[in-house]
């Protein structure tokens, strides 16, 4: 098969036909890859909803060099031979992305201090890079009641950015879908069929794919901040899944188990609910070694050896004496 040549932010790469602009950009590297909140490589038909990955196609292809009239969602646009794409080099794209981030945040509660996702939240990273430091939205934010979907997953719809990833998991990974989107417009919400429990072996992967803290693990909620834990690659013999996971330890205790995520925040292999929720004993797992965490991530701040030394005490707190 012939390869197609595509240029993204002045980096040229050759990719097979059918590759999307986002995938091609990821092959080049972090410096040109657009952020993606809804696209997930392993979930078919995902992507195209959040619009954070908008890019400008300044040259359509070698045959038809006209630029595309609008910004396109890079996760759903396939490359053409000779295509030229601008991502970070286009002020128009940066401006549009800032707009999208602002839209995503207007109804987000910004409750990061009490949110379990903080520290590994894609929306946090995205708004740190593209957001403004204050909100221009002066109206009441939309709120929902928290729902337990099953005995292991908590749905906090207020935080949801409607990326549809969990809906795709329910559609594609688990049989008998009982989970989807109800209502429309800015009151649409993720819900199970009249709040039925989501009860099947791979439903826990919804938690891993959720880019924000809308779906959280009820066996881990409020147990610890993620950056106090030590992520370790570990595996076990599992008859349902590959058994390859990350165990998040505090001392010798396993606080939670998640899938192994790559540098784009996508899990390599889905893990089953037994591994995720029921194997919290260190004896269940064969630890392979510490997980590589990006230097920029808050999780790497403690270099794995912290824990107790950050317990707040009057001596360590930077409080000014008032008297």
């Amino acid at each position, binding site marked *: 098969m012939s390869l197609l040549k595509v240029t993204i932010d002045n980096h040229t790469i050759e990719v097979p036909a059918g590759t999307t602009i986002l995938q091609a950009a990821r092959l080049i590297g972090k410096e040109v890859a657009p952020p993606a909140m809804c696209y997930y490589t392993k979930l078919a038909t995902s992507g195209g909803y959040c619009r954070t990955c908008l890019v400008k196609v300044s040259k359509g292809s070698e045959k038809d060099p006209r630029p595309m009239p609008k910004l396109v*969602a890079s996760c759903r646009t396939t490359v053409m031979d000779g295509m030229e794409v601008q991502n970070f080099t286009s002020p128009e794209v940066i401006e549009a992305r800032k707009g999208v981030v602002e839209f995503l945040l207007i109804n987000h509660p910004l409750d990061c201090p009490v949110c379990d996702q903080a520290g590994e939240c894609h929306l946090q990273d995205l708004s740190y890079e593209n957001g403004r430091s204050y909100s221009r939205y002066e109206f009441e934010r939309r709120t929902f009641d928290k729902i337990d979907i099953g005995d292991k997953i908590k749905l906090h719809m207020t935080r949801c950015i409607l990326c549809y990833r969990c809906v795709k998991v329910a559609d594609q990974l688990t049989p008998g879908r009982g989970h989807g989107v109800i209502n429309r417009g800015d009151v649409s919400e993720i819900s199970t069929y009249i709040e039925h429990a989501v009860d099947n072996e791979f439903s826990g992967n919804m938690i891993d794919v959720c880019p924000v803290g809308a779906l959280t693990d009820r066996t881990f909620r409020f147990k610890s901040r993620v950056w106090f834990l030590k992520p370790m690659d570990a595996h076990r013999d599992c008859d349902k899944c590959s058994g390859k996971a990350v165990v998040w330890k505090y001392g010798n205790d396993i606080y939670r188990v998640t899938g192994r995520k790559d540098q784009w925040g996508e899990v390599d292999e889905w893990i089953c609910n037994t591994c995720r929720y029921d194997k919290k004993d260190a004896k269940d797992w064969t630890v392979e070694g510490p997980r590589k965490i990006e230097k920029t991530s808050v999780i790497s701040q403690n270099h794995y050896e912290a824990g107790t030394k950050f317990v707040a005490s009057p001596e360590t707190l930077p409080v000014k004496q008032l008297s």
Partner: protein
Amino acid sequence: MSRKLLLTHDNVPNLHTIDVYRSKGGYASVEKALKKMTPEEIVEEVKKSGLRGRGGAGFPTGMKWSFLAKPEGVPRYLVCNADESEPGTFKDRYLMERNPHLLIEGMITSSFALGANTSYIYIRGEYFYVSRILETAIAEAYAKGWLGKNILGTGYNLDLYVQVGAGAYICGEETALLESLEGKRGNPRIKPPFPAIAGLYGCPTVVNNVETIAAVVPIVNDGGDEYAKIGIGRSTGTKLISASGNINKPGVYEIEMGVPVEEFIFSDQYCGGIANGKRMKACVPGGSSVPILPDYLVCKTATGEDRLMTYESLSDGGFATGSMLGSGGFIVYDEHQCVVRNTWNFSRFYHHESCGQCSPCREGTGWMERVLHRLEKGMGNMNDIDLLVELAKKIEGNTICPLGDAAAWPVAAAIKHFRHEFEYHVLYPEKVKDSKHGHKEPIMPVKPAPVMA
């Protein structure tokens, strides 16, 4: 009197019955198409006619038809978009109520041209009674052998179904319509692939507006060249205009393309001038989603030429000084109408109808509506006006489907042309508290019309 092609017999009693329709020359195009023409010839005639989509975008129909993929062994579908939900547009309803057989005739001819053996009319939920009229007409057509197996002994089979939607504006977007027709949630699909390649049930599909399909009938009867003689330039044929607002004679008018806007508003043959002897203040020429025009730009373009009812002339000057023909929902405002209130009303509609799939539209439409509501109630501030301009810019072009654009354009245009009215709402909050503030004291353009080059 201008020539009529679609509404020729609309005053004939019982035109909705097949016998009366036949006596007026109905179904002649089906006989001509099926017996004397090949599908390719019909597509060629439609191309020659220069017919452009009447649903709003104005894409050439013949070109759309020729894009239809024709793989072996895969069914093709024709879907009629009767989900007319644009505020200010009601032409399709009138056509289907009065003359359902014209649509059915157009569907048969077009389906034959496209090689479709199953076709659908997707009609909006609020037009439930119209769906009854259509279903009765379809039953009559089946009984007389115009539909079903082996039509007119030519061996061509066609089944025609009416599907009633649930009343969502978004289902007028062609891919959302197809999703809804498939029984799913009416969310627009991400394009490409376009429906001509993978549409209904993944098969090649053409989606056309009611008026477009009806216009195929005179094109086949009289020939594409004859049709192309009507109109000016690339705007050919006749167009149904739904005229509403503060005019003496609101209603559906069939006009020849190229009628001057001034004549359309003020002549007794059409709208009959502004009601109650008032002055015109503004006009939305193509349904709620197109930019509003202030009085000095309605009848003349920015270059001083007469504005005509054509795709090109109405969009002359781009969005800076022009608008769009759109779906032909012609709304005229007199001097007592409040533009801010009108913009808020449109914005409220788009907020309510946004499907919630992509973030700029889902969050942005709600935000715009809330800011406009605040301005309208006299609780806004000057920054709100610039905020609205910025929000409209951030939504426009960044969404999956054109609903985002449709929500952003009217707001951006209203602020561009009537900024002083928005400022009036900020400066004199006590005067706009009453919801009928415009009726007591006209808010007229404070600034004079700019001098045109």
